[in-house]
């Protein structure tokens, strides 16, 4: 009889241990869904944003530099130094991001001093971003185009900025011409600039970032 009592005691102790164990487990899993759902997702998304914005900004700067070199029309560009700086910065914030170019970065200028003129920069990148529970492996292509089109019949110029396929009108560009007396440009605010220039007059369009596009009214 005493032995039986001992067995019951052992069973009771085991049962209590089991109960405590399972309740702790349940409590933990319950808490986890609320507290630790994805602790660094926000940081990772931030890292992605910083990478993307950084790359776009690098291209924008390079486009501005190249568009201001009048003799330049087509060029392959090495931006690895600038990209390395971006990676360094991200690393300094604890974000391990690898960026590599998958194709040459090209600057293209078409139709300089004609009715329809564009300057364009395009690059393809591979981005690898990883943290404990978030990983991004992405190929992106960025094609940034500034275009100015002059219209002789309505005597105006329309300026647009296109990122990949997404176009928008540029309303904060400054336009100038070398004619005397100086031409007056009125900004119509939807990317359109009205003026009173004559056939064959040159127009210089400088965007807010400093990118130069040259068109000719004809």
């Amino acid at each position, binding site marked *: 009889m005493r032995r*039986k009592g001992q067995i019951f005691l052992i069973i*009771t102790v085991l049962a209590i241990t089991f109960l405590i164990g399972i309740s702790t487990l349940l409590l933990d899993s319950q*808490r986890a869904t609320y507290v630790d759902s994805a602790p660094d997702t926000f940081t990772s998304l931030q890292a992605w944003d910083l990478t993307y914005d*950084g790359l776009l*900004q690098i291209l924008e700067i390079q486009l501005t530099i190249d568009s201001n070199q009048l003799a330049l029309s087509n060029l392959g560009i090495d931006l690895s130094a600038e990209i390395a*700086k971006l990676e360094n910065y991200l690393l300094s914030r604890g974000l391990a991001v690898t960026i590599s170019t998958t194709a040459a970065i090209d600057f293209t200028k078409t139709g300089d001093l004609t009715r329809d003129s564009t300057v364009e920069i395009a690059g393809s990148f591979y981005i690898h971003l990883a943290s404990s529970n978030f990983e991004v492996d992405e190929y992106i292509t960025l094609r940034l185009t500034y275009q100015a089109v002059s219209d002789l019949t309505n005597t105006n110029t329309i300026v647009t900025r296109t990122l990949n396929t997404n176009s928008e009108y540029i309303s904060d560009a400054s336009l100038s011409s070398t004619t005397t007396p100086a031409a007056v440009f009125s900004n119509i605010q939807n990317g359109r600039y009205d003026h009173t220039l004559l056939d064959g007059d040159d127009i210089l369009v400088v965007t807010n*970032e*400093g990118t130069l596009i040259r068109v000719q009214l004809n």
Partner: protein
Amino acid sequence: MGGLIMRRKGQLFVIEVLISLTILIVLVTALFSTINFSPPPSSSQLEEIGENVLDRLVETGEIFSYFEDANYSYYTLYEDIFDNSNETKKAVSDTITSSIPLIANYKAFTYRYNETVIDLEQVGWEQVDIINFETTLPVKNNIVIVEYYTPGFYGQFVEFKFQLHIWYEVEQ
């Protein structure tokens, strides 16, 4: 005979214990699945607000004209802190003030990457300016820090970073 009955009783007890254990476990599972022991953390949302402020500053371009002016003030005029009444600085501070909650306060630090500066504390990053210099960072409250980095602007590769510290002046 007596021994056999006792043994059977023992088995019954074991079965009873098992059944009660099962019931208990089922009960505990049911309880735990419906009651939230820890409510979802009430996010202060300051981080999100901060990110939005930075986005806005970049989209309007205010931050770039401010960087340009702060750069001029620091490197050409040799001023540690750039004039508060300057329009571009005022534009940035106005945007921040109007975007963060009324009970929140902020302080922002602007850095420029300078390859010639080798400071052990912040390698290469030189503090160019402080916005809302008069405020002191709180000791007790949680400070949320968001940062904007740009590899350059206006056709120049000049690395700048803008560090925005936001906190609630009132304990949440």
